[in-house]
């Protein structure tokens, strides 16, 4: 628990709730998180959009995205509050730090591979462009 985790917290607010109310709701969530020792690294109002299926007989929803850094305790608290709030149609929290680390590692490996054999790296690329079967097998 020593290391900080990064989460993406996305939730859908009832479309009948006014924009400034949504703002207030989002601020309330952020306050809970900071109160629990977490921090907000990004907020994004994705706005009102049509949902792919109805939730609580509503066709639209206002999407709000937060990026949270913390231990995980604040996520539990926020989710508990969201569950009882009927203005929030749905919420989802995803841990992203591990996936991002993995992506960085892949990028790193690719960079090192390219640096090690600049000639063959190019040749390989050409193979990809032609779309031969050897490249698929490797």
């Amino acid at each position, binding site marked *: 628990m020593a290391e900080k985790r990064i989460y993406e917290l996305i939730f*859908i607010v009832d479309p009948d709730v006014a924009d400034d109310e949504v703002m207030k709701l989002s601020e309330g969530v952020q306050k809970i998180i900071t109160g629990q020792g977490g921090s907000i690294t990004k907020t994004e109002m994705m706005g009102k959009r049509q949902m*792919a299926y109805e939730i609580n007989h509503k066709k639209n929803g206002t999407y709000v995205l937060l990026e949270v850094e913390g231990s995980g305790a604040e996520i539990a608290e926020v989710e508990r509050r969201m569950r009882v709030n009927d203005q929030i149609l*749905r919420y*989802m929290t995803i841990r992203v730090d591990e*996936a*991002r680390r993995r992506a960085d590692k*892949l990028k790193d490996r690719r960079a090192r591979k390219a640096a090690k054999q600049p000639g063959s790296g190019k040749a390989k690329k050409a193979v990809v462009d032609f779309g031969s079967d050897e490249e698929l097998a490797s």
Partner: protein
Amino acid sequence: MSSNYEDRDLGFEQYDRTMPRGPRRMQRRKICRFCIEKVDLIDFKDVKLLQSYVPERGKILPRRISGVCAAHQRMLAEAIKRARNIALLPYAAD
């Protein structure tokens, strides 16, 4: 009985791998688009991208059709399922 099934399996495999009959089956093999673009992470919020791998019915496009490599198909499937959860993509459509 069981040998009967084995025979059939073998026959099918042979047919599938070595006998692309007709001009339609002779298509060039597809290459993973994500590998070419060097994508390391597929975001569930990228609805436009995900939609191209979810045909009308709402099901995830199999990689034998799309040509996506195994690693990227896993990422793609995960992203599509997350998008479904948050109503960005349908679970089923008709």
